[in-house]
């Protein structure tokens, strides 16, 4: 601890101990605790306590009966825990009987302060820090804290209850760690008293008839097996698994969610899953005992396991597929999904029992679809993967949702009534359908997939979010459709689909709902990026009104739409798919090139999104050598940088630097020798290669832009500019002296201007810079130093312990009135 802090500490402690001076807020205290933790982790706690007796004084003080705020009391308990984490300091504090007073019956435990959840939480967290060494375990046993922790497991505050459970896990782990070192498989009867007590409590809870108690025990075990993979956990599981198995015989199974978590935690533990204590049988039994809603997460967990018996995997998969099997059963009995080997799942369950009410049906289907979506890309997913029936099921669910399915059974009709118009299921099914595009499917099913997607894209009833998902799924399916031999063009079926799809797009682009226009444009951009070069796509797109409408949307009232239109137009234009607008009402627009239109947006649009989009398009154009850009690259870059430098949005300025970097690379990357056949203008004196390279950069005023950005008030911009200039300096380092071609400000005046800029006065421009001056300035600037300064977070000053202490002291006592301002 630095001396300044040591000096401030007594004052701080007295402020904390004074009930008349309320402390700022919890975050201050949290920061203080963090600070103490850092100190004790790096140095000796004993020394800290001895050098700063005020800390012990504070701890003693809070024990006195007084009107102290619960948060200070909680803080003190936690601080005591942090300090006592080291055995020597623990002993030191024990000498004064401080710890029993804080954590024993005599402390806050028995007092009125205990009613505050903060204090109970502080008590637990204090113990959590304290219990690190054998002495602390003895201390626990002595002061009877374990019983209190047991009772806190059922605390009304969820935070306290959860922390109590975790503390038990920690205590159990620590006590076993010490004793089991020599004997990895010590029988439980020989375990330390503390561990025996906890295990006894868990056993008792598992035998209890009260579900909350069972859940507490299960949660403690889940955490234990999740975090600790020592051999003793195996002994513990062997001992407790019969009790857990007993739970399965109850009807209904109590605390099913916790039970699932426990079993999965056991199955994931390398120590436990390899043992032969009937885990797989228990899992199989659980799968068949739990309701479909409860069994879903368990089935998914089992399927995600790396090692697992094949039969169990098959059963889990069948359970997971049950709801979809029911849907198929009720609507199209021809396509079957795999059922479990013993036939208990899927086949025998009817839609009526599995999907009883609308809410249950929707919830279960959404969960099932989400689980399967998670499972699909995993390497350990079930094999063979029933791609075709799943596709069939996804299509059927979507058809049930839009009312186009014609179920023949009563169950199917009920399902239809539940699902019609259900946006949640539609979204989940479309996501799942999109994921399924990773695998192939029978031709007729793929045709059905495209047909149902087209229905959704066409239907006026598709909600904007559903439509967005439909677009995403469509793109994924188009992307996955196989390319025909001999060409990168779309395969004939996809082409056919595209021909039907494109007439839908204009209508969507004209939708009164901006979300629809936006997602349509995003889809168009994706499509163009992927297939803009393919003849079939170009043909269909150019035959439609889409390019014209997209151009129109550059003037949309909604900024998100304008931004998406900018991206789409940029992409269309890159691919040469941009037609000049020929709207009869806007004859003047005909002359206006897209470049001019985008520049107009960049300089005038009131919202940031379209301007950012324009910058991205321009950067891409420059990178791709877009024809409009190549015509006069320097003029283009100069214009863009000029506009971008004035922009109020830091992302636009940052993107400007990105564009500058691309230009830089293109310019400096060019071969230094001129083409021998090129005509050199006779009036220009021969220049050194670096000057030649830098001259265009000077002409587009890239340096002025970069230097301004260097002192930008937004750190990311300054950092980026710093990187750019460092790159430039590295490239120019090898060059020697530069000839002065005369004119322009010299290095000294540039530096003077930069200093003014740095101090906030950015009004004055630099003027026409010469390469020589630029290189000189680059060399004189401390760019590394600047980069270092920028790399430090902006709150580094405020984060120092000293300033923290000062803050607490400064704000103590004056907080009553502005409490609401704190978070």
């Amino acid at each position: 601890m630095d001396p300044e802090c040591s000096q401030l500490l007594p004052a701080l402690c007295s402020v904390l101990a004074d009930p008349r001076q309320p402390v700022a807020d919890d975050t201050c205290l949290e920061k203080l605790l963090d600070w103490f933790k850092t100190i004790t982790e790096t140095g000796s706690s004993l020394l800290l306590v001895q050098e700063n007796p005020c800390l012990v004084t504070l701890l003693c003080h809070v024990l006195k009966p007084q009107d102290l705020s619960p948060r200070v009391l909680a803080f003190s308990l936690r601080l005591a825990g942090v300090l006592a984490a080291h055995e020597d300091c623990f002993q030191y504090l024990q000498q004064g009987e401080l710890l029993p007073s804080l954590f024993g019956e005599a402390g806050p435990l028995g007092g009125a302060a205990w009613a505050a959840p903060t204090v109970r939480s502080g008590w637990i967290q204090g113990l959590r820090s304290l219990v690190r060494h054998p002495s602390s375990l003895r201390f626990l046993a002595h002061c009877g804290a374990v019983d209190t922790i047991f009772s806190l497991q059922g605390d009304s505050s969820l935070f306290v209850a959860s922390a109590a459970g975790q503390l038990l896990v920690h205590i159990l782990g620590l006590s076993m760690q010490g004793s089991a070192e020599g004997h990895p498989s010590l029988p439980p009867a020989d375990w330390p008293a503390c561990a025996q007590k906890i295990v006894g409590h868990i056993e008792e809870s598992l035998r209890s008839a009260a579900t909350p108690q069972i859940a507490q025990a299960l949660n403690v075990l889940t955490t234990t097996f999740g975090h600790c993979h020592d051999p003793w956990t195996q002994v513990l599981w062997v001992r407790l698994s019969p009790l857990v198995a007993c739970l399965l015989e109850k009807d209904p199974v109590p605390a099913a969610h916790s039970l699932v978590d426990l079993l999965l935690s056991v199955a994931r533990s390398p120590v436990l899953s390899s043992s032969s204590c009937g885990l797989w049988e228990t899992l199989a039994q659980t799968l068949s005992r739990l309701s479909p809603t409860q069994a879903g997460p368990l089935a998914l967990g089992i399927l995600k396991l790396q090692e697992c018996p094949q039969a169990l995997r098959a059963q889990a998969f069948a359970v997971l597929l049950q709801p979809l099997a029911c849907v198929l059963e009720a609507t199209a009995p021809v396509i079957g999904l795999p059922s479990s080997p013993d036939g208990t799942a899927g086949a025998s369950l009817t839609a009526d029992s599995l999907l009883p009410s609308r809410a249950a049906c929707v919830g279960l289907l959404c969960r099932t679809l989400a689980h399967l979506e998670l499972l699909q890309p995993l390497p350990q997913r079930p094999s063979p993967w029933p791609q075709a029936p799943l596709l069939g099921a996804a299509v059927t669910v979507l058809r049930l949702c839009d009312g186009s399915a014609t179920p023949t059974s009563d169950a199917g009709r009920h399902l239809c009534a539940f699902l019609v118009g259900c946006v949640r299921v539609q979204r989940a099914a479309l996501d799942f359908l999109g994921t399924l595009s990773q695998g192939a499917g029978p031709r007729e099913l793929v045709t059905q997939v495209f047909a149902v997607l087209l229905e959704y894209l066409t239907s006026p009833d598709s909600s904007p979010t559903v439509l967005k998902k439909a677009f995403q799924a469509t793109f994924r399916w188009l992307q996955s459709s196989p390319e025909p031999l001999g060409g990168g063009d779309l395969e004939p079926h996809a082409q056919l689909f595209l021909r039907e799809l494109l007439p839908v797009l204009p209508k969507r682009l004209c939708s009164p709902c901006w979300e629809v226009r936006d997602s349509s444009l995003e889809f168009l951009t994706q499509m163009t990026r992927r297939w803009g070069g393919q003849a079939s796509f170009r043909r269909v797109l150019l035959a439609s009104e889409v390019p014209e409408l997209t151009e129109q949307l550059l003037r949309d009232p909604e900024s998100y739409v304008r931004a998406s239109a900018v991206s789409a137009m940029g992409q269309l234009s890159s691919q040469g798919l941009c037609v000049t607008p020929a709207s009869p009402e806007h004859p003047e627009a005909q002359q206006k090139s897209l470049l001019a239109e985008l520049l107009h947006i960049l300089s005038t649009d009131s919202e940031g999104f379209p301007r950012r989009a324009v910058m991205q398009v321009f950067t891409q154009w420059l990178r791709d050598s877009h024809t409009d850009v190549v015509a006069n690259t320097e003029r283009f870059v100069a214009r863009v940088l000029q506009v971008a430098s004035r922009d109020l949005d830091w992302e636009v300025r940052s993107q400007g630097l990105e564009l500058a970097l691309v230009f830089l690379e293109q310019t400096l990357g060019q071969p230094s020798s001129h083409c021998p056949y090129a005509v050199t203008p006779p009036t220009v004196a021969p220049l050194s290669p670096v000057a030649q390279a830098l001259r265009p950069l000077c002409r587009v005023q890239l340096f002025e832009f970069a230097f301004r950005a260097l002192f930008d008030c937004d750190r990311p911009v300054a950092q980026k500019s710093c990187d750019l200039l460092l790159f430039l300096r590295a490239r120019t380092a090898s060059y020697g002296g530069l000839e002065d071609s005369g004119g322009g400000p010299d290095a000294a005046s540039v530096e003077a201007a930069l200093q003014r800029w740095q101090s906030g006065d950015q009004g004055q421009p630099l003027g026409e810079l010469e390469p020589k001056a630029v290189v000189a300035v680059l060399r004189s600037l401390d760019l590394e130093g600047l980069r270092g300064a920028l790399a430090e977070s902006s709150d580094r000053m405020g984060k120092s312990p000293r300033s923290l202490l000062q803050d607490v002291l400064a704000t103590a006592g004056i907080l009553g009135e502005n409490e609401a301002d704190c978070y």
Partner: protein
Amino acid sequence: MKLYCLSGHPTLPCNVLKFKSTTIMLDCGLDMTSTLHFLPLPLVQSPRLSNLPGWSLKDGNAFLDKELKECSGHVFVDSVPEFCLPETELIDLSTVDVILISNYHCMMALPYITEHTGFTGTVYATEPTVQIGRLLMEELVNFIERVPKAQSASLWKNKDIQRLLPSPLKDTVEVSTWRRCYTMQEVNSALSKIQLVGYSQKIELFGAVQVTPLSSGYALGSSNWIIQSHYEKVSYVSGSSLLTTHPQPMDQASLKNSDVLVLTGLTQIPTANPDGMVGEFCSNLALTVRNGGNVLVPCYPSGVIYDLLECLYQYIDSAGLSNIPFYFISPVANSSLEFSQIFAEWLCHNKQTKVYLPEPPFPHAELIQTNKLKHYPSLHGDFSSDFRQPCVVFTGHPSLRFGDVVHFMELWGKSSLNTVIFTEPDFSYLEALAPYQPLAMKCIYCPIDTRLNFIQVSKLLKEVQPLHVVCPEQYTQPPPAQSHRMDLMIDCQPPAMSYRRAEVLALPFKRRYEKIEIMPELADSLVPMEIKPGISLATVSAVLHTKDNKHVLQPPPRPIQPAGGKKRKRASDDIPDCKVLKPLLSGSIPVEQFVQALEKHGFSDVKVEDTAKGHIVLLQEAETLIQIEEDSTHIICDNDEMLRVRLRDLVLKFLQKF
């Protein structure tokens, strides 16, 4: 209580409710789908329509060729269009006491009922309903009268001839009830019988029932009705909407605790979501106009058009359509647009508050001010000089059989650049288009029906919980074309009772109570006795006086004093010579205590048997049986009156007398 169902059209209902002593007609909708069988009435001579070939029988007999014309494989009646009236024979309509109108679409048959059936009662409706209903009728009469047709076809209606006709003419029912349109004079006379009412106003009908209109949220002034007596409540729900459009929101709370809820006027297109349809309407409109095409919107002069104009107001700038003219052509266009702005109290809250700004509630005022929306009574006159293409035209009639729309169909039908967008759900768009085939123009069907859909109905029924629901039969099964859609029907418990045209339903509840007033002096004379906490009884001797469905108990008349100056009689003589009344008994007999009492009085061989209704106490020695049930006690003993009286007195000790 009976319900006479005079119309088979679920959204154009006409029912008669007999409730207590009143006969109440609920709506009188006019089914205009019959006009689809007729040829359009062109405003300007149409060579195409006038040169259609006459229809002849398969054997070549052409005696109907003047009446029936053939167009693109369909046969149409070449005559003034006729409408299908509600049933007039099922009940004597002159006995109808009142007609309750729920919205302006459901009153179009009013002149037929009030002017031609001997009706002498009163019609109740809200002001906007009457005003806009008048506009609709005026427009209808105007559309038909301004194109006089010399010919009136009637031969084809002959039953024997109709059998020979092709479908769908062959299958049309009730053709005998089809009538030509009424005249303006009849309209005025019919409307003069209307009495205006406001929401929640209570109207007494002959003291027997009270009727109250409630906001139904569907159109300006649209109402549901509550018909109630002191102990019964019938709700009539017709054309209601829970969507936020321009009218005042629906009042659902007042529908609670109904004995019977008559449910009509649900959405005609339950599968189409109005929001999606408005989106579809806007995008198709924009696409057409952008390509230089014209858009035709066949519509009624009031209702959804207000919402469409509001949507377009927000949409046109964003879609770059600011320069496109919007025309609204109807004989009542001006009145409709202006009326909509003055019925502030009938509008949704949002629009009501605009009145205080001051701002017109509907933004179409601004469209008119900025010349973006122009309205004309007809396409003759100013319109022809202002007309500029491409444009959007809103005009009637949605059946495409009469009105200015006929002209635009003829004018624009040949170009595929143009689009007709159907927004009114009342007519099948394919049937409406049949006489214009072959047609090059694009047709878009986006019916916007804001009335309740089945999901909303099931929520509504759950909330208001009527004892019985009565609805048209169409609502009790899925639509024929989508028989698997169980969600497209009313699902309630007990199942809804359904009705069809010309059916009489006995409503499934019996009246059990009637309220009777007691005159104060009679009430004064009563001496109630508390028999249970909170319940007191008293015997009443009185005269029941009933007048105007009000019942009053009055003190019995004193006997007429004989004339002459005889001596005053003694006071006891004042009592009329009625029998001395036995006291009334109440209470129940606790068997165990009764047995103890019997034993106390010397009956030793008492035996008790339980029966289904109570107990039998047996006195074996005396061969006597006392049968105690909930509402009666019998003492059965042979020829021992003394014993019977003793037992009776014992029984009476356990009962209260008054």
